């Protein structure tokens, strides 16, 4: 190998994870999942099948769900990732979907949970009023061995309803504020 050529088996990665910039040098073949777990220390993303079918490794890449087990860290340069650790809205505040999962017992061992949360969060952002059938379809790429799926589906439907109610409340508040401003003008 020519000493003046870069070693292309090594990758220099600049990536934003949950709002924090990281710079690492790793083997090009390191998966994004392994990168998150071993280089960044975020072990919420899990490895089940390592070939894209079980869904446990699902993260948001530039805001859209993707399988981190079949993507390589070398590809991350300039991108941003949200992992399950980035879903909570505050130090002591779970996201709506996390909250309903908790309340409905939608997790037991927790292995599929991170992938389920990521998938559900994206799904509800795009389909705010889904039927049960649509929820089941949307989650069909995330496999669970413990719960039998029912409490997960219930939690996602409940989250959908709470998110709609919150949007309606916010919409009403904004409209009321606009009215107040009109009358005082």
């Amino acid at each position, binding site marked *: 190998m020519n000493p003046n050529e870069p070693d292309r088996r090594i990758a220099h990665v600049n990536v934003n994870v949950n709002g924090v910039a990281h710079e690492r040098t790793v083997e*090009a073949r390191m998966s994004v999942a392994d990168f998150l777990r071993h280089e960044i220390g975020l072990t919420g993303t899990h490895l089940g099948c390592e070939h894209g079918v079980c869904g446990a490794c699902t993260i948001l890449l530039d805001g859209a*769900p993707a399988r981190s*087990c079949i993507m390589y860290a070398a*590809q991350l340069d300039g991108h941003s990732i949200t992992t399950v650790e980035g879903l909570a809205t505050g130090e002591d505040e779970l996201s709506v979907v996390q909250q309903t999962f908790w309340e409905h017992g939608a997790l037991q061992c927790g292995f599929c949970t991170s992938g389920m949360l990521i998938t559900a969060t*994206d799904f509800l952002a795009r389909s705010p009023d889904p039927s049960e059938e649509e929820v089941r379809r949307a989650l069909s790429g995330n496999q669970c061995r413990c719960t039998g799926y029912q409490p997960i589906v219930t939690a996602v439907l409940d989250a959908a309803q709470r998110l709609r109610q919150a949007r309606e409340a916010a919409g009403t508040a904004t409209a009321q504020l606009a009215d107040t401003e009109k009358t005082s003008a």
Partner: protein
Amino acid sequence: MKPAPFEYHAPETVDEVLELLDQHGFDAKILAGGQTLGPLLNMRMAAPEVLIDINRVKALDYQRHEDDGGLTLGALTRQSTLEDDAQMPQRQPLIAAAEPEVAHRAIRNRGTVGGSLAHADPAAEWPGLAVALDAELVLQRHGGASRTIAALDFFEGALATVIEPEEMLTEIRIPPWRNTSGWGFHEFNRRHGDFALAGAMVRLDLAADGGCRGVAIALIGVEDTPIRAGAAEQFLRSQRVDDAALQEAARRAADNVTPMHDIHASADYRRSLTRTLAYRALADAAARATRIPS
């Protein structure tokens, strides 16, 4: 389940990709969406020395609804881009119907049309669409030479296409869809998002008197490449299209396949699925077609 070491390249232009392919030939694999190559690498069913990541070649990610109704796609078009295209159900209804069936959303966010066609899984939806719609596929090589291949001539066997090691699939051209055409799409799998055990994609054009003005019946998951049910199509073209004719066409489609036999389904079961799914897709297409006065 970790890949063997590889040299990683991330070119930004088509020319750079073609140069690398020319340089490395058999030792290199193109990485597009990675939804198929990733598993192969992880399981070490493929161990290329060189990986050419084309995800930074933005010039390959385009989708053009042409004035004549055709659709031109760059090879890097993400499946989810087509799924989310609000114009698709009207302009290319078979594509709109098939996209949500491709695996799962996370796969569709990365997976590309070019990658699906180049990989040529016998049960994948895009190879079936290409064959159903008579698409043309453009292959380029370093030095400027390119060739355009009809979809039916593109697939050679399971996971095998006519693409040479120094070539890259760059563009997919879909002919205009007549809005009077009927369409039908049915595939069968045990879980939503699985590869189809069998699937049928149909385009049907009808005359006012019920005569068949044109038909395409594509089958996926049945043989080792997507196929057109030629005998069924030929029969239907000579018929007044009523339910009996559709049943007979479906029967001929099933009689004329040599189905795969594997752990997912027996040949007999695939043959049975062919008949049922072809009939349902034909029936849907007949119901949707606008009958044109001759």
